[in-house]
């Protein structure tokens, strides 16, 4: 959308032709950090032989992610761990693929296969799958980004009824759905190190429960390999 607006403005207002070296300099400045590790984290995917990681903390979520590029189209595999208030934990395996891979636009899809464990009064556990779409728009050192996700957990209830006639055991399943979104900005300090700040919106156990209280997090990203 921004590109279209820029294009229409450019068409409507004839500008003096820039000299070739100035264009090159400006373009180079804008894309200098396009391969920064922090953009791999917020935008998804990694180039072959590169890797990236992130640790983040905030309210209510904290966690870590590590990914390594293994194939074409920014295909990356990795691990992801998140926890909420040290009561809800979800370790997962990660598969990420870039759908749009341009210096100033990253669009990717992630699949996370994990296991949810929640302790405390509302204890629950079960397999979890989460699909995420990530969009990042790197410009120079900064990249605003948005992540949309849909998380699904299969919960199992085991009920044992003890009577004089004997015990009966019942197994039932429930589906917990949590749509979520994160909007934030990533800053590349170097190509290897960066930070990101995001607002986390989630709707835990939707649509039955009230929408969750928004959260916020600050992350430190790092990476290596040819960038």
């Amino acid at each position: 959308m921004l590109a279209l607006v820029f294009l229409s403005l450019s068409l409507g207002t004839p500008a003096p032709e820039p000299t070739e070296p100035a264009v090159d300099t400006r373009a180079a400045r804008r894309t200098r950090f396009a391969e920064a590790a922090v953009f791999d984290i917020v935008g998804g995917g990694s180039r072959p032989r590169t890797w990236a990681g992130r640790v983040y903390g905030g309210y209510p979520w904290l966690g870590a992610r590590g990914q390594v590029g293994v194939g074409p189209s920014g295909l990356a595999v990795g691990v992801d761990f998140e926890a909420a208030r040290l009561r809800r934990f979800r370790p997962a395996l990660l598969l990420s693929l870039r759908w749009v891979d341009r210096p100033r636009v990253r669009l990717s899809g992630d699949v996370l296969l994990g296991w949810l464990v929640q302790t405390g009064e509302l204890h629950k556990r079960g397999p979890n799958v989460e699909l995420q779409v990530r969009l990042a728009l790197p410009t120079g050192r900064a990249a605003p980004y948005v992540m949309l996700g849909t998380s699904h957990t299969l919960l199992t209830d085991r009920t044992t009824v003890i009577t004089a006639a004997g015990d009966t055991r019942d197994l039932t399943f429930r589906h917990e759905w949590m749509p979520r979104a994160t909007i934030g900005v990533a800053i590349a300090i170097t190509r290897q190190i960066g930070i990101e700040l995001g607002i986390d919106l989630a709707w835990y156990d939707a649509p039955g429960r009230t929408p969750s209280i928004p959260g916020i997090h600050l992350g430190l990203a790092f990476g290596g390999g040819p960038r």
Partner: protein
Amino acid sequence: MRSVLLLICLAIGCGEAEPGVVVRGARMPVIDMHLHPGDWDHIPPETKEFLSSRFPFPIDLRPDKAAASVLSAEGILGEMDRAGVTVGVLFAIYAPRTVGITSNEDVIADLARDPKRLYGLASLRVDRWNEDREQELANLREALAAPGIIGIKLAHAHQQFRMDTPDYFGIYALAAELGKPIYLHTGTSPFPGTQQAPAYTDPRYLEAAIVAYPGATFILGHLGYDFKTKQPGALEGCIDLATRYPNVYLEPSALGSKGSDPSGDNLRLAMARLREAGLVDRIIYGSDGPQSPGFVEEYLERTVAAMEAADYSVDEARAVLAGNFARVFAVPVPEL
């Protein structure tokens, strides 16, 4: 810098509300006769789970912390300040299989935090009644002698004893003897383990006790509301009893909350019906808070809105919100 802090403070609502509430342009004091202090550790696991599920994520992950912030005496006073409530009444409760235990001793200790603004209702265990009724009644008598304890709290549905069983009438006899009003939970309840059958929830089953003890004052809590179906339930039964017996009073707490009456129609209906029946002088305001931060304030606002919708005059609202309570419990009307 000070101006900036003041602006931030105003923006996020620091400080306390002005005491009292405005009804039809007149500010008046408020007594909330239904507040629950408590200790998270004294609540049964099933009820903890139920209560946790009512908090939004991620507060539900640490409900003990959320509960501690509102269930302590300081937390309740903070919620009262936020709502403009001048005086509050804390309930003891002994329902170990449903909503848990808040002991008389704990309530008496809480009252000491602010004796000018807090009163208490004492209660007793009834789950071993065949064995220890005399001891329980003696304990209740002793609690009723404590400073600030002005009445008795019972909840047949939560304590799992029938309203019409004469074995328990000794409690009403004690109330009549000491001149201490009895608050009774009426209507169903969402808490796990509650006895939902009419003999435990329908106030019409109290009639024998009301007749037998005319010297005792019976306050029918929640107006017999059916919290399971979110319908008025035994409202007409409450009105009938209050119309026929002068020792019956009515308390409209909880039924008009956002969760139990999302549209507010049921609370408006109840307040309108009580006024139509000529029972304004029998209504005693209560919220059933604090439940969650802001509940006490919100319930007061919803009740005032329901009274205004039903054309309560300023004097009628003043009676509902403080005057009737002061008369029944023989305490002064608080000043603003």
